[in-house]
């Protein structure tokens, strides 16, 4: 069919929009290379001093380490309970199960500010404010629904007869789970783990309520930098944060591409 002029114009417009969705974030790159002492664009020369600053300052380094630990542990927990839950709901497969599913997806729907209040109400009496445990638990609750979604999507394409076959051949529940079901839904588990890690790695609103001095994640320190709006190190941090997020995205995209033809 001949493509009409308005459709062509719209396609051009859409490409411009798509580029504009990404381009603004890239200004952090030149700003991070400025040789000046304030947030500015480099004019004559480029400098890596703020990357040196970022990777030598004890504060930023400890924030990197904290974000990595909190992200890794909460991803492990969220992926485990999210995957088990998805398999459970898939086995149950009843209206009651679907009600439970929508309840478990609530952490994605409830505004983060309300989640932050709720966690803070709970953690103050438990002494979990400003602790790794508190943030890890909170991030696990917020990211496990993502795993539930991706694993459920994988399970929708998983042949339930494989599970029956495994049991008929005498495998126990546990062996069936580990050797038959989990390998069959690996792409969904991996995607869920990547989403879970990024959601923790980027999380700021709940962290603002739950951290004070001793736990200071990367987004938390960036938040301060953005509010103060003077030190160019925050630009370097933004570039690194973006790079790691895109790296995780690339891992996920490559894995998805590799598994798709086989599925």
């Amino acid at each position, binding site marked *: 069919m001949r493509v*009409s002029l308005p*459709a062509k114009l719209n396609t051009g417009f859409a*490409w411009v929009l798509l580029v504009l969705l990404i381009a*603004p974030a890239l200004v952090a790159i030149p700003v991070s290379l400025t040789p000046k002492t304030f947030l500015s664009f480099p004019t004559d020369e480029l400098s890596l001093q703020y990357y040196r600053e970022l990777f030598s300052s004890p504060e930023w380094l400890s924030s990197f380490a904290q974000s990595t630990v909190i992200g890794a542990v909460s991803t492990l927990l969220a992926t485990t*309970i999210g995957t*088990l839950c998805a398999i459970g709901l898939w086995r149950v497969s009843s209206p009651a199960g679907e009600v439970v599913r929508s309840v478990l997806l609530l*952490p994605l729907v409830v505004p983060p500010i309300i989640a932050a209040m709720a966690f803070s109400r709970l953690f103050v009496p438990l002494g979990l404010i400003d602790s790794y445990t508190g943030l890890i638990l909170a991030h*696990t609750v917020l990211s496990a629904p993502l795993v539930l979604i991706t694993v*459920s999507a994988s399970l929708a394409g998983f042949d339930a007869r494989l599970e029956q076959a495994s049991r008929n051949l005498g495998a126990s529940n546990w062996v069936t789970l580990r050797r038959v079901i989990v390998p069959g839904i690996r792409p969904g588990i991996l995607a869920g783990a990547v989403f879970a890690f990024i959601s923790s790695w980027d999380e700021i609103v709940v962290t603002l309520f739950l951290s004070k001095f001793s736990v200071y994640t990367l987004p938390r320190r960036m938040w301060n930098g953005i509010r103060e709006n003077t030190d160019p190190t925050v630009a370097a941090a933004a570039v690194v944060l973006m790079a790691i997020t*895109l790296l995780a995205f690339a891992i996920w995209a490559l894995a998805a591409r590799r598994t798709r033809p086989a599925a």
Partner: protein
Amino acid sequence: MRLPLKSGWLLVLPFLLLVGGLFLGPILNVLWISVTDPAPGFGNYAQLGSSDTLRRILWTTLRVCVICTAFSVILGYSIAYAMVHAAGPAQSRMVGLLLISFWISVLVRTFSWLMLLGRNGVVNSGLEALGIITAPIAFMRNELGVLIGMVHYMVPYAVLPIFAAMQSIDGRVVQASRSLGGSGAQTFWRIYLPLTKPGIVAASLVVFIINLGFYVIPAVLGGGKVLMVAEYISVQVLITLQWGTAAMLAAILLFGVLALMFLMSRFMKLSTVFGGART
């Protein structure tokens, strides 16, 4: 099969306990303090009638959300339309750009907008160099900046439901309209657009729901001048320690979001929005 039902629920249990104990329980506690702190009763809710500040904040939140939703859905519709009609490789490139933009942290975006929209930011100096403006435009510390940042963040969320709705349209319907003599414009406005209505409604609701509780972008780009509900709640909790007022606003926000979710479930199966029910 050995007790399949029981073993299924057993696997659900850890997640259910975690969400129940760490999330739903404390949220109920927040709802509870909205009617008990500082004094039992509906005093916190009565403030809505008496306090101009609260009314202004709710009004700002609604206004910004409505405008942002409208722009996000219109721009998202354009992208989705181009994506559906693009050939294979171009389509995957478009989807790739969209997904990357999804993944860029809200903090990075906010920081970048600060650099771009400031008085001496890229946009102002660019426009001045081109001779389009003589004095810098105030993009920040006002609703304009907040809207730019929020629309930019929300467009990808708007694209996906509309894209899904467009993909399910039977192309022969459009051909039938053309062969019966309908012009391109007529076909679009009278056939295509109505068919994509479920996608538009779902996209509007998704965007609106996320906007209602948006914190980072209004707080930074609004610079204290565009006070929306989420930022006000955080000030009440972290600075003035007025949990009662904060809890009341949280309750209103929560019921608003849940009501919109319920509305959405009537237009679209929630599982298609969230992906992955078994059937």
